[in-house]
């Protein structure tokens, strides 16, 4: 009998921090050498200024209140406040850190995020044929999108939000109408 993992897939909107999850957090406070981030859980997560690639006591990262951070949980359990880092175990950032200016942040359900993170996701592939765009998916239900113009960004946001309830057919029709324009 092989090993393998069993899990129960369910739908929810409220996020519970889990160790190792990659999430998008919003900086709410700077307290000395720690930042407090809102990740959508019951408690704000803490992030040390040294937990960025190439950060030292002299070379601090330029993080302001209101910035978006993409990071992963180092410590997350029900008894303590969660702790985030923006580097992996080898010290490389691997895509984590401060998310750039502009773009649009919105919230979706956790089930849709898991669908979008599956390899070869059809929704992402079809959208990328429409316009080029940058996309960050947080396991806490937050998505950040940035395209060339505001209008293109908002179209992508609307498609992603609607793909929670649209069937594949409806989505292909909607995209065909948009690319026909």
């Amino acid at each position, binding site marked *: 009998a092989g090993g393998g993992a069993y899990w129960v897939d369910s739908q929810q909107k409220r996020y519970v921090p889990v160790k190792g999850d990659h999430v998008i957090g919003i900086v709410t406070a700077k307290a000395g050498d720690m930042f407090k981030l809102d990740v959508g859980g019951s408690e704000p997560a803490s992030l040390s200024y040294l937990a960025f690639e190439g950060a030292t006591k002299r070379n601090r990262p330029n993080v302001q209140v209101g910035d978006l951070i993409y990071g992963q949980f180092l410590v997350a*359990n029900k*008894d303590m*406040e969660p702790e985030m880092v923006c580097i992996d175990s080898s010290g490389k950032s691997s895509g984590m850190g401060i998310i750039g200016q502009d773009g649009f942040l919105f919230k979706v359900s956790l089930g849709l995020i898991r669908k979008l993170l599956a390899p070869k996701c059809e929704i992402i592939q079809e959208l990328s044929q429409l316009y080029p765009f940058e996309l960050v998916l947080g396991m806490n239900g937050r998505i950040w999108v940035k395209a060339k113009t505001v209008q293109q960004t908002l179209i992508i946001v609307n498609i992603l939000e609607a793909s929670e309830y649209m069937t594949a057919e409806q989505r292909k029709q909607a995209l065909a109408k948009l690319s026909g324009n």
Partner: protein
Amino acid sequence: RHPLSPSLAGERLCSTEEATPGSGTYTRHGFIYSSLAGCLERKSEDSGLPVVSVVRDSESQLLPNVGAVVTCKVCSINSRFAKVHILYVGSTPLKSTFRGTIRKEDIRATEKDKVEVYKSFRPSDIVLAKVISLGDAQSNYLLSTAENELGVVVARSEAGVQMVPISWCEMQCPRTHTKEFRKVARVQPQFLQT
């Protein structure tokens, strides 16, 4: 025993020739003074002079001293320390609980920097600890579990069942058989009740 009468702090009670000082008093220049605001008690001793003492309540509150072993319950944990409520001093229960702190570096005697508070205590654990300091302005007693006989004595697993200790750092749940990390106390055999 003579009837009680109220006394003020700093009040001169009598001279040391008439009585011996007891608790709640001090001596200066051959006289006994009260150090508390409370009730004056005069107990006649069979041998020698009566003992004069001042008490606040009908039973005196037992305060944890430095070096006393206390029983406490963990109320919250942090990556740097654990906050506890002190319930018993030795074997006497306290009427009102005191608050204590166990710092991360005081949990174990060896490998202090590798300690993780989450792997030593959890909220609602019962812990035997020793008082190392009476505390600072926040009036939190500073406690330590850096001995083999100190640490977690009673803990519940995530399933809610009382766990059985299997080593100095692990406890096991008898229902789910999952092991959880704790800093377990090696209780002396004479204190165990089976």
